[in-house]
């Protein structure tokens, strides 16, 4: 039965691979891991998109 509790994720390993790969050869599964963490964050993972400063005066 799949009752997962997430252990903390990190992107460092996949990024090290991507960094050394020519654009054309970046594998979909590596890219999709980045997409999930960076792009698919709006609905299920709440990430801040913009940190804005506006003075009060």
């Amino acid at each position: 039965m799949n009752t997962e509790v997430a252990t903390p994720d990190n992107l460092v390993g996949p990024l090290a691979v991507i960094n050394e790969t020519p654009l054309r050869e970046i594998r979909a599964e590596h890219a999709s891991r980045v997409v999930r963490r960076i792009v698919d964050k709006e609905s299920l993972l709440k990430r801040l998109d913009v940190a804005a400063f506006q003075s009060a005066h």
Partner: protein
Amino acid sequence: MPGPAGDEAGGAHPLSQFVMKVHGRCDLKCDHCYVYEHADQSWMIKARAMSKDVARAAARRVAEHAARWRLPLVRVVVHGGEPLLLRPAGLDELITEIRTPIEAVTRLSLTMQTNGVRFSPAFGDVLKRHRVRVGVSLDGDREANDRHRRFANGSGSFDQVRAALALLRTPAYRDLYAGLLCTIDVRNSPERVYEALLAEQPPAVDFLLPHATWDNPPLRPDGDATPYASWLSVIHRRWLADGRPMRIRLFDGLHSTARGGPSGSEQLGADTVDMVVIETGGEYEQADSVKTAYDGAPATGLSVLTHSVDEVSRLRPIAVRQRGVAGLSAVCRSCPVVQQCAGGLYAHRFRSGHGFDSPSVYCADLRVLIDRTNEETRMHEADAKPEETGPADVIDQIASGFGDEATIGWLTEQERSVTRALVAATVEQHGETTGWLTLTALEQGHAGAVRHVLAHPYVRAWAVGMLRTGDHEGMPYLGGLAAAAAVHASVPVETDVRIERGVVTLPTVGTLYWPEPITAAARIAAEPGELRLTGPDGVVLTVDLSQPGAAAHWQPARHIARDGWSVRIEDGDPARDCHGWTPAQRLDDHAVGHWRDSLAAAWRLIDTELPEYAPALRAGLKVIMPLEPDPAGRQRASTAMDAFGSLSAAPVGPAELAVLLVHEFQHAKLGALLDLYDLHDPDSDARITVGWKTESRPVEAALQGVYAHAAVADVWRRRAARDDPRAPELYAMYHRWTVDAIAALRETGALTPLGDDFVGRMAATVASWDS
């Protein structure tokens, strides 16, 4: 036999995971299924599907329990049988019944486990609306999957499942995709299974050992004493060598328990199992896997219609699962790997006459697997370059509030890799374009030029936009990147671009302005020393690149540099509009002169007043994106998390600009760190009251605010030492905001151990100011 299921084992305790069987039948007839094919045959007498009344009663019981124990989060797994046998409308109704009472008292995380065969856009829309994440069962390649996962007529389900997964990967439903569940059969090739699973790009994979007990031991072909360890080790080695492209829960759990962390799974490790199953008719049961033991094994005799969750939690078979290692057999308790294994899955320990008081029937495999996994991981980490886990002090460096050039350089590299991955993903999603083909061809001989262009901060903002929508209209942006790289490389290219509201951007090179603010397809030819843009009606704009100046239709990139600082003014790229405020339109020379003066003076101030912040800013800040001024004259500045290296601001004087640069770049540094590491539980929707905003803030926003305001407090602390009359009051205010918010953040319980560490270091920095 274990004691009667109704045995009470003492006081009630909190349970936070509930598996709800919303449909009791399945459209597949897998021969390894524990519901239909194992000892427990109670499915024959259970309700076919969960009624609305039962769902409502179950949810009320869960809500009442969550309220009594003040549970911060309840997890509900929508399960079967096959939950998609409910039609979309039925599923919608049932999930609504489940959500309403629970969400009135606590947070709810919903997942569904399905065979995927019936998954469709109609189901996807229902699940999306209710934010239900979907796990799909797939046993590997066609041969592996269809060995067991077949319809009643004997035909395989592989094609239907793959179609479902393809649908789950589209932008509309990608958020829902939780992962794959693969039941191991050692007769399948582990390499082929791994590759087939990987090809589905799952966020996570869980491998399940086939259900077995000491009475019904698992298949062990060819006399290999530990075939399951051998099979999984092949995958473990391959997965490490591939750079862990997906999460594999079993291995993540072993890596975590090897360092004393939680396993995150009930298969291995001593995490307490605080789970109960609610059957279609409302009966409470133990974990499904216990069905494999003996007929009636999971039954508790209690029901949501008549009993509370507290009453179930007192039952011995449920309570014993809470005791971790202390609840295991004597053999396991004295086993050297007990902290990582903890007797394996509960159901696998069953032996007639001994109940569940034995090691796992997979004991030999588990011992070998754990030792081997630990060893393989050690060897891999010893071989790996240090970058693979990040510099050891990256968290320290950023938490100190500053970050040296090497740390910021490393973060910048990671951000560039993120951009590369996202650009590649846009092509995977929308298909190849001439711009892409040109860019990748250029990369072969001129990798430096392509890297330079991809370092433009708004490439990522553009890619994120493309990946969040199904609309491919914006893809010719890649043509602008290719043309820019070609200019840097002095190589002739011709490619498609798009005039977007009158603009074609060649990031890092310059911006072409079409005479009218149209949006239309166009073609660009970059020759050494010349650009030619051909737009609608064959109109051609030509740029002589040997002439440094601007023209009505051409604005070369403008750089402002002094004393080791250098930024580019970005006022052309349409993708820059991601900062929450209106970007300024093309700046005239006067406006750029104003920026030049303000920046030069602000940099001098930072170098003299705030020298610790200077190295990070110099290394990381590459672009200033001017904003329209605020009509009320207030300062405006922002950092977009999808544009590392850029900062937007409305025109402002040097003293304020110095503070803004420091404040905003704190956001950028922390944003880049959060791209890489989990400092907080992303599922947490805790809200924190902070001094700098009237409304309470989510965890990440509060963390960002604390980090950036601590720096502002630091600025005023230093200015106080220089007898600035406003400084003591401002320092006191920012300091109080920071200290209070740090305390509030720590109280949420939403920080990961890394996040706790980070906040602790930040608190220590702030505390050191008082002395």
